[in-house]
């Protein structure tokens, strides 16, 4: 049987930003996860399990190609995985928990990490906009120090909402198309 060619998009972001949920929402297979029980006390207060290596989901494009969505572990102690997963990625979506400003600096650090190593398009997803105390996307943008010159759009979404997840992916893909079409 002919092996399918893999196209990769990376879903990054701080701990508990909603990366696994994002992939779950659009993947055509049950997301493959590498979760372990959270160990740090501060993390246990947020969720019981966390990604330690990667998650992935996939979407079949045609007879020859599959789109893989790779979710990175959120904690910076696993940042060696960010490097591995970023290699060859078409683009990167950095998810942020809009209700948790203490993670915004970590999100910026993740953007810096990928910007300095992989010169590919990046989109920020301001997640959890369905919750009442979510920061608006324009304020998330300011808090992340994203300047217009960086060309990183901040898209409001709830990772549970399929249409909003699709919109985030499509925004990234349109930037990639623009970069392909430009001389």
């Amino acid at each position, binding site marked *: 049987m002919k092996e399918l060619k893999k196209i990769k998009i990376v879903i990054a972001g701080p701990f508990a930003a909603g990366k696994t949920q994002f992939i779950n929402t659009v993947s055509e297979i049950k997301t493959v996860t590498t979760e372990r029980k959270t160990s740090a006390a501060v993390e246990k207060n947020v969720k019981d399990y966390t990604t330690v290596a990667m998650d992935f989901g996939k979407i079949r494009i*045609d007879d020859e190609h599959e789109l893989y969505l790779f979710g990175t572990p959120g904690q910076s102690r696993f940042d060696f995985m960010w490097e591995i997963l970023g290699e060859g990625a*078409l683009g990167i979506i950095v998810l942020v928990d809009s209700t948790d400003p203490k993670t915004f600096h970590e999100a910026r650090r993740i953007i810096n990490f990928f910007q300095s190593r*992989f*010169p590919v398009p990046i989109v920020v997803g301001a997640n959890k906009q369905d919750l009442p105390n979510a920061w*608006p996307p324009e304020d998330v943008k300011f*808090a992340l*120090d994203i300047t217009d010159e960086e060309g990183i759009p901040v898209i409001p979404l709830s990772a549970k909402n399929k249409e909003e997840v699709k919109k985030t992916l*499509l925004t990234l*893909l349109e930037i*990639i198309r623009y970069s392909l079409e430009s001389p």
Partner: protein
Amino acid sequence: MALTGDLTTFNFADILQVLAKDRKNGVLLVEWKDMIVAYYIKEGELVFARPVDKVFRVYTDRNFEQLLAKLRIKKEDIHKTIDRFFLPRLGQKEGIFSFTPGFIKFDSDVPVFYPVEDLIMRASRLLTPEEVDRKISDELLVFEKMPDADVKVSKIKLTEEEKKVLSLVDGSKTVADIRKEADMDRLTVDRSLYGFLAAGIIRRKRKERVQKPSITLDLLSKIIEKIKQL
């Protein structure tokens, strides 16, 4: 929508940066350990501070001029409330903040005694090493001055150290280069860079994208169509 958070993880330099970027109007409420203070923000500038015993009182006064009249405070004296209820607390890290935009009506002639850029620099001078590490996280970062940097700098009384650090920001030196050439302690350099970044005086220099996506336009169009149909 309110902006809420904890001062231990989102300090005053960060908060003022967000309020200033969008030139917001509204009230920033901070619940300190010993009191609640309402900070009045006009077009991104802190103009007035007022301790309150009950939060709801803030929302009953919707006209700034009438509020001053009620409190018997002259406009030319409102900066004294900042001296008393804001500046001494810049270094305090325990507090919960929430910003509610838009409900207060300001007159056009509310004086700004402390420009927000100046307050951001004052807040940056009190940051801990852990706090500065949040923005100045990578010694390979390169900063450049913003086109309007001189205008913003003119509103701030920079220290000699800060002037020296700013002179080293040239769009090519890395943070590591600046730390080395500044010949001063690292925390002072990093605090200065943090403040300049939050005050919109410098920005990260964008790396030129050199990598073309490794995909054909046809295949990309197929992916886009597939995502749309999901």
